[in-house]
């Protein structure tokens, strides 16, 4: 079965894209307030970057959206679903995928199997057919394998298909993790520092992949990133968090001019000589 770049496999079986509305969420761990009254929206098809100093609550924000944390207050609406009250294993059915800051791949599985696990929600055969394999389960494997091969093609990881993930270089692991999220064929993808620890060349590759999946596949993207150059270049809008509060949101240019953001990043002028 040949895989053609001109096929558009992602157009079938994709769950509907919705606007994501984060409404006044607050999250605290004991006495620590990780997020305080944060609201923002993310339109279908846009790239929204979340930036902020370390400990600002960026990852907590993603964890709230994908159901790993449940905020004490507020709602996170995606279509008709309140994600703040949904277990994370239900999210892939709505078409929400994510990657992690410290790569959380299945280290003792091959790249191919990692990506095939991304297809998990699309595979419905029960355990009896799985035990028999030949016939139904095999057919389902092949159908999903075809989709996975498109992702492998897009991310240019053909040569490591059958290697154990644990043995791969860091940059490739990051790419495989993006691949696993893409294999799900999501409508919304959450990327937690997709370029951390990469060299310039790898960052350029990753930026290209993010733009490709956004423009070609039309996936809404929310990403956390520390590299300001990349953030300002590729995102449609930028949200800035500081100490768990949203201090600014808008296009890259607006955010760059926002006095609160400048204060957060460069420090406050206390009346000394500047």
């Amino acid at each position, binding site marked *: 079965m040949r895989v053609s770049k001109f096929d558009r496999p992602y157009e079938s079986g994709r769950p509907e894209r919705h606007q994501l509305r984060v409404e006044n969420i607050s999250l605290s761990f004991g006495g620590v307030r990780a997020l305080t009254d944060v609201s923002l929206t993310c339109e279908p098809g846009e790239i929204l970057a979340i930036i902020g100093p370390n400990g600002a609550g960026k990852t907590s924000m993603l964890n709230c959206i994908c159901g*790993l944390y449940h905020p004490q207050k507020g709602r996170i609406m995606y279509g008709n679903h309140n994600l703040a009250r949904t277990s994370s294993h239900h999210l892939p059915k709505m078409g929400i995928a994510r990657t992690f800051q410290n790569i959380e791949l299945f280290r003792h599985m091959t790249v191919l199997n990692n990506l095939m696990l991304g297809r998990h929600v699309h595979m419905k055969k029960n355990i009896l057919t*799985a035990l028999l394999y030949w016939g139904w389960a095999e057919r389902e494997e092949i159908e999903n394998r075809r989709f996975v091969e498109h992702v492998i093609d897009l991310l240019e990881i053909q040569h490591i298909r059958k290697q154990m993930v644990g043995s791969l270089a860091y940059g490739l692991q990051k790419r495989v993790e993006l691949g696993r999220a893409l294999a799900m064929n999501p409508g919304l993808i959450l990327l937690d520092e997709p370029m951390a620890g990469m060299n310039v060349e790898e960052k350029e590759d990753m930026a290209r992949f993010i733009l490709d999946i956004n423009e070609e596949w039309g996936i809404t993207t929310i990403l956390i990133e520390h590299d300001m150059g990349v953030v300002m270049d590729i995102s449609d809008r930028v949200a800035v968090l500081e100490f768990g509060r949203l201090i600014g949101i808008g296009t890259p240019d607006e955010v760059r001019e926002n006095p609160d953001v400048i204060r957060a990043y460069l420090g406050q002028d206390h009346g000394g000589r500047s």
Partner: protein
Amino acid sequence: MMATTQCGVFHESYRSDMQLRPTTWQRLRVVVVFAFIIILPFVASAQNLRIANTVVIAAIGAIGLNILVGYTGQISLGQGAFLAVGAYSTGLLMHYYELPWPIALVLGALITAMFGAVFGIPSLRLKGLYLAVATLAAQQIVGWFVRNWDPIDGTKADGAARELSMPRALFFGDKLNDSEFAFYVVGMIALVIVAVVATNLFRTHIGRAFVAIRDQDIAAEVMGVNVFQYKLVAFATSSFFVGLAGGLTAVHSTNISFERFTIDVSIEYLAMIIIGGLGSISGSIYGAAFVKLLPEILRDVGLWIADQGWLASGQLDQYLPFAEDAAFGLAIILTLIFEPEGIVKLWSDLKAYFRLWPFSY
């Protein structure tokens, strides 16, 4: 780890890429293994065939345990209990309901699967050693139960361990607990089926979900795996095979008593999968063979030493149990130090060596 596969094999369809044994040599090896399986009962003595049968039962049980511990990463010390549930439910179904043994075996395995799923519930909250302690509870509960439950035939005075005498199971006119040959046929068919379906399971999304839970449970959850549900499925699937092994033990015996399903058995099975290779079906079989053959080999060596006149009469029987324990412990320690991935890794290293020879860089 590099994947060392034979070069020059080009697949033209996903189907052929996903085959278990794509090359001619690999298929030839399968043929050799089957030839060995078929010829063995005709050449082996009744004594050796009895040993082969214990290996077959242990291999089925080890595959079951490996699904849970090796593949899904849920440490279980309740193997003995699960074997006991399989053995006693098969035995009781035959004893009281006079069910034919194949039906009793399957029902016994299903009962064990349900039992396993119930004892898998703590895995929602507990991981690693804590879960192991929770499964230890299964061991104790089952132990108490079979010692005190009335329907299990009390052949001894109360307080002592009870035994359930097994009705005879006939296979083409031969008694399974009498004819080692007949049992070999039944047991080997069961082992081949179990090995094949277990291998198949890990080629599909369900098996992959098990491995994903072991490697990174949070990521698995975020990728859409209902971790709790799949843990229970893993417990049930594993216990099904373990229950089958227990049922076969029952059918192989004239009576069953709880001494054969103690905590020692749980540890022996854990040793099998560690020595054979965690997360490997063939490793489970190698490990079962190793652990079950080790005492037999030791006994032969001991007899040879006694024959040389180096031991006084009676000393052999005195030392042998200690030698067995020591060899067992030594095997585990050596495996953990030198090849934590078990016999199956040794075998694949050997194959890789010849594949890469003489240019192994």
